[in-house]
């Protein structure tokens, strides 16, 4: 278990008074304090880490969020924001002396505007819920993390979530127009709105992906896009990772940006095929799923261009889907990848580094060597267009030694990502999981710069403490003095 800061004795001692204070601020049933009912909040998508919180508050309005934060601020109580709890980096892991603020009751869609192509939603609306609300008019919300059935837009904003289609449509930050936030002091502030671009500092850009370090998001204005006429996938299998990587380069440099370009290595192909029976070629070392959009004729044109490029790389097989059903079958294995790996291994860690795409073959080779030396299997899934690598490290959670090895293996992979010019996390966030690796990517000066920004928003470091930044004796850095 990773180090967490010592609970504040004064907060633990005042537990009953804090719970009573919160109950006075929220409607009936808005505070959870019983041990049994706190249990579901002890962890998130990174279930290896667990900590029961002091209490859970479930506000239903921005004003209630503001009053809870004001109360916590006045009483020096730490706060952990939570949406659906799907974070893979432990972003919603509680602290023993923290109040979890669950935003799931704020789950209404407040406005949809097709003329200006936006929707205003509360943070507890699920990612897919936005698309479902606008699908009838032919629109969709573009970022599509794998957890989109469950994950909530408030969490997406805080983690700057991506998805398989962000090569074309961008990540959360590229699809937002405005936020309503509440500061730790309980001030409600509107950022952006229905217009493009910030006059003054880009608070929207800074808050997106800030992992609950700066404020709590209570309203989100997202851009909605018109769905394409159609989409179709193809599958290309190759004799080596190097060849598949070279093929990706050739596609990109030819001027085609597919809407998705997914890479799976041999272990991932085998795991997914055993699970989904998608017809993946089991003799391939590497496989690409390539998706294009447009009318049928446009799909034909693009797929023909891509097929011609793939054919230059001695493919084992090339399969262009002829229908929506065939496309769905091609995607079925990839989308079920996590479940598929879960079937062959009791537990796995899903890593999330990004690398310069040209370094893929080299990085996969070194991950393979690490796999041998750690004695743990790994399957690699890769958003090939944008360099986001998801190694799934398989281990047995009932064996603590196996878990520690998996963690060390994961850390080595992420350090390798940084070493080759990449970064620790492409879309899952730092959370608690990668907190202590931040020194591999940033200098002390750079981390202090980021920490001072947190202090500017949250002077007492009450918001989502112990995430993102390595623990230091004094949580907040010294502010530099004017000369």
């Amino acid at each position, binding site marked *: 278990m990773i180090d967490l800061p010592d609970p504040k004795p004064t907060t633990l001692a005042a537990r009953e008074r804090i719970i009573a204070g919160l109950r006075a601020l929220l409607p009936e049933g808005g505070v959870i304090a019983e041990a049994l009912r706190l249990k579901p909040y002890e962890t998130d998508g990174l279930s290896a880490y667990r900590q029961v919180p002091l209490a859970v508050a479930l506000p239903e309005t921005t004003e209630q969020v503001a009053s809870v934060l004001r109360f916590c601020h006045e009483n020096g109580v730490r706060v952990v924001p939570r949406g659906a709890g799907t974070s893979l980096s432990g972003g919603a892991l509680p602290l023993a002396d923290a109040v979890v603020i669950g935003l799931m009751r704020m789950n209404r869609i407040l406005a949809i505007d097709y003329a200006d192509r936006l929707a205003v939603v509360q943070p507890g609306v699920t990612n897919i819920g936005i698309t479902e609300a606008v699908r009838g008019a032919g629109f969709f919300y573009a970022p599509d993390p794998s957890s989109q059935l469950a994950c909530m837009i408030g969490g997406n904003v805080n983690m700057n979530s991506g998805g398989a289609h962000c090569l074309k449509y961008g990540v959360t930050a590229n699809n937002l127009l405005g936020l309503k936030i509440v500061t730790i002091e309980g001030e409600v502030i509107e950022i952006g709105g229905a217009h493009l671009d910030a006059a003054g500092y880009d608070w929207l850009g800074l808050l997106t992906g800030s992992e609950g370090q700066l404020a709590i998001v209570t309203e989100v204005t997202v851009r909605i896009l018109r769905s394409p006429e159609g989409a179709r996938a193809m599958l290309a299998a190759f004799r080596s990772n190097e060849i598949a990587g070279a093929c990706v380069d050739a596609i990109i440099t030819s001027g085609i940006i597919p809407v998705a370009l997914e890479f799976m290595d041999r272990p991932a192909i085998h795991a997914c095929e055993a699970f989904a029976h998608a017809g993946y070629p089991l003799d391939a070392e590497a496989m690409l799923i390539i998706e294009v959009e447009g009318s049928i004729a446009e799909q034909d044109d693009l797929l023909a261009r891509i097929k011609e490029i793939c054919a230059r790389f001695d493919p084992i097989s090339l399969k262009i889907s002829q229908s929506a059903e065939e496309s769905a079958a091609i995607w079925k294995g990839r989308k079920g990848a996590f479940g598929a790996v879960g079937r062959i291994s009791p537990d796995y860690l899903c890593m999330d580094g990004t690398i310069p795409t040209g370094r893929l073959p080299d990085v996969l080779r070194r991950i393979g060597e690490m796999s041998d030396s750690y004695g743990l299997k790994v399957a690699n899934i890769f958003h090939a267009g944008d360099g986001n690598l998801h190694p799934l490290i398989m281990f047995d959670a009932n064996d603590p030694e196996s878990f520690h090895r998996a963690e060390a293996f994961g850390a080595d992979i992420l350090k390798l990502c940084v070493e080759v010019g990449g970064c620790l996390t492409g879309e899952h966030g730092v959370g608690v999981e990668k907190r202590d690796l931040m020194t591999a990517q940033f200098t002390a000066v750079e981390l202090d710069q980021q920490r001072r*920004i947190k202090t500017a928003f949250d002077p007492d470091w009450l918001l989502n403490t112990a995430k993102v930044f390595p623990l230091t004796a004094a949580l907040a850095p010294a502010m530099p003095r004017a000369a």
Partner: protein
Amino acid sequence: MSALAPADEAEIAQAIGEARARATPLLLAGRATKDGILRPVQAETTLSLKNHAGVTLYAPNELILSARAGTPLAEIEALVAGAGQQIIAEPPDLAALLGETEGAQTLGGVVACNLSGPRRITAGAMRDHVMGLRAVNGAGEIIRAGGRVLKNVTGLDLCKLLTGSFGTLAAITEITLKVLPAAETTATLVLPGLDAQRGVAALAQALGAPFGVSAAAWLPRAQAARVGELAGFAASVALVRIEDFRPSVLYRGERLRALLSEFGAAEILDEAPSRAVWRAVRDAAPLGPVGGHDAVWRVSVRPSAGPGIVAVAEGLGGRCFLDWGGGLAWITAEASAETHRAITEAARAAGGVWWLMRAPAALRASLDVVPAEPAPLAAIARRVKAAFDPAFILNPGRIHVGL
């Protein structure tokens, strides 16, 4: 008035560190083509990054380019064009509009001001494509943000915070951009004779269609007359651009023409006139020459509110046109506090924002050149400024008084 123009980052850091020690304000510049935007800076010393130039990385297969801040934008545009790629946000060259030297602007200037062109409506702003930065903060410390990969959520996103911060937080020394393939060809649908309301409705219909529109603008008759390729219409024009492979551009042009038929018969401009038209729109050339007694505003509102801004601007005797599907109004009118109040109140009433892009210095010094922030946010802004620039020496007052 002294001027420093060091060639390397260590010297830039040293100059800022010394200025901090003496608490001397610095005016940060590249080639100084954007000094007239927002508020004038009171500083004895100019620190120019124009000599800190050069492309340091270009990997077309990875869609990544890095260059030092002083690199002329034109040099980068030519380099990526050579590989069939482009800067995604289509940044404008506002030199003519601002009365400066054309073609001289640097990458650092475009990023520091977050300037984006017509493609912003569908492909994002400069800030969306800044993947990494190197910068020197007001304490003279070198910091890096982001990286050289396309997807990165490691730590706070300082790339977005510094982009568009007009040099008030740090001197950006090097920038890593995502680039994309340039389309094989382009075409533009022109719908003549629509007033602003109908024009923006047509743009909304086009942008809400599944045909990959990449830009959408509306020009009143007088502004269309200033663009050679549009003058022949002798009417206001709604413009819809498509950029893609040739078969797609042909197909989508026809589908859009049919879809928009209720707005009249669209004429389709092919590649060469299309490029000329959108270059003019990008650079705000349809506003025409701006005199010494005139000011220029950029107003961003929800697209459907654009026609209301046009009405206010024209009521003031000004000239204007709309880009970004109606959401970006470019306005020129008499430079006065009264005109400014009328335009900014209209923007505020529509829930939007503004930038005073050009005006006499005395006027710029006395107005809210961008909207004032609510008190709690202004307090945070001041603390964030101090977190980067403890002695408040970098471009003081450039955006807000006292910041």
